[in-house]
């Protein structure tokens, strides 16, 4: 298959950046999107040109490192998948493909398609954990958890922190990410002691990072490779209202 690529090139935060055109010829339909980028980059290197930078690590959809906007969709148009698990057979032969970094004030571009998602780390550091004594692991099933709660907690915990929710949101809001981390703990007994403090601190960290305000478009839910749902956001809203009512 042949493609025409329009790839965002930007040397760093200070640079204005612009799209550059590349031809991707003779690409197997079974190539993953990132492998296609590798092939184009290798050809650039062979010609003595500078390859473009993009983020990736596990390439099996579990680490959350990869991701850019592909033809206007975060992680491409397939849905429920990361960019590394997305294949060129999803495109038409000869198609023009626009490749842009995830854009948000809180995600500054480092280079080309690579953005700094450190704002997510700040949100997690603000309360995305439970405080326990470390030591030997507790006995399995020592704390009973209702099945429904366990499953809904696992659904929220599936978040890999890729930032597609922010990228796809018309408001560049981080509500789905933050609420996923909150819902994961709010649905388990271990999360209860710090529940109120957690939501206060994590929401504050989210706001201070400069993300936008949610208007319930649900684009985050549609873009999430791990299919987190809007009920996580409702859970966070509920918990923050509760936090405002106590004390």
């Amino acid at each position, binding site marked *: 298959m042949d493609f025409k690529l329009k790839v965002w090139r930007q040397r760093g935060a200070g640079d204005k950046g612009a*799209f550059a055109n590349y031809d991707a010829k003779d690409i197997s339909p079974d190539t993953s999107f990132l492998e296609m980028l590798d092939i184009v980059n290798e050809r650039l290197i062979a010609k003595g040109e500078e390859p473009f930078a993009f983020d990736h690590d596990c390439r099996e959809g579990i680490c959350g490192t990869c991701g850019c*906007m592909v*033809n*206007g*969709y975060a992680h491409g*148009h397939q*849905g429920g998948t990361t960019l590394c698990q997305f294949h060129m057979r999803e495109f038409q032969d000869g198609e023009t493909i*626009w490749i*842009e970094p995830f*854009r*948000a*004030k*809180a995600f500054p571009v480092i280079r080309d398609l690579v953005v700094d998602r450190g704002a997510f780390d*700040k949100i997690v*550091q*603000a*309360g995305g954990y439970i405080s326990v004594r470390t030591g030997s692991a507790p006995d399995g099933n020592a704390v009973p958890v209702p099945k429904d709660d366990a499953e*809904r907690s696992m659904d929220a915990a599936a978040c890999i922190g890729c930032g597609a929710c922010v990228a796809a949101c*018309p*408001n*560049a*809001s981080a509500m789905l990410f933050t609420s996923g981390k909150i819902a994961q703990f709010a649905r388990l007994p271990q999360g209860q002691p*710090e529940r109120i*403090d*957690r939501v*206060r*601190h*994590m*929401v*504050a*960290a989210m*706001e*201070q990072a*400069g*993300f*936008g*305000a*949610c*208007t*319930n*478009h*649900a*684009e985050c*839910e*549609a*873009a999430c490779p791990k299919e987190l*749902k*809007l*009920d996580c*956001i*409702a*859970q*966070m*809203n*509920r*918990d*923050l*209202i509760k*936090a*405002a009512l106590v004390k």
Partner: protein
Amino acid sequence: MATKVMTFYGTSIGKKVVMAVTGFIVFGFVTVHMLGNLQVFSGPEKLNAYAHFLKSVPAFLWTFRGLILISAVLHILAATQLTLQSWSARPQGYAVQRYRETTYAARTVRWGGPIIGLFLVYHILHFTTGQVHPSFSDNVYNNVVTGFAVWWVSVFYIVAVAFVGLHLYHGVWSMFQTVGLNHPKWNVWPRVFAVAFSLAVFAGMVSVPIAALAGLVRPV
């Protein structure tokens, strides 16, 4: 947990809760308003008596108007702050951005607000204070019927009320989500409620100008 916590209103969620509560108050008013309008179909005596009753206790009337006005002001204030926050959150937009889930109602909810606001100024000058009404009098029934007999006024009303309907649809659904009433088990009900109510309000409201244009209600 080192981050400095914020006041409830300082967070975007707090502002959205203010929007949900004030929106709910105005939504309640709009629903009652629509039901009141339908009395035009019961004839001039009924509608004029109802209008008279609403104004009979000034203290009651002004408390009610004050509540609506305060709600509207808070709703607009929070909406403006949230909009500015979102605009600054993506200084550089995408060359290509496609949507899969959002609705027309959701995308127009911000601009629907100011449009409805401008319409309300006209609406009050038209039917409440009468400055822009061609033949304003104490007879509310006649004001309604002769006001809507001008075709372009009616068309303008119908378009404006369509915006109200869209705003209500996204607003009512969002209200549930914002205050945290969303659960996978009964997720569809807020949607159903939002569709049913915004359609009912739209249909009830536009039935009056349509009836006036069709000559089904006539001046007395």
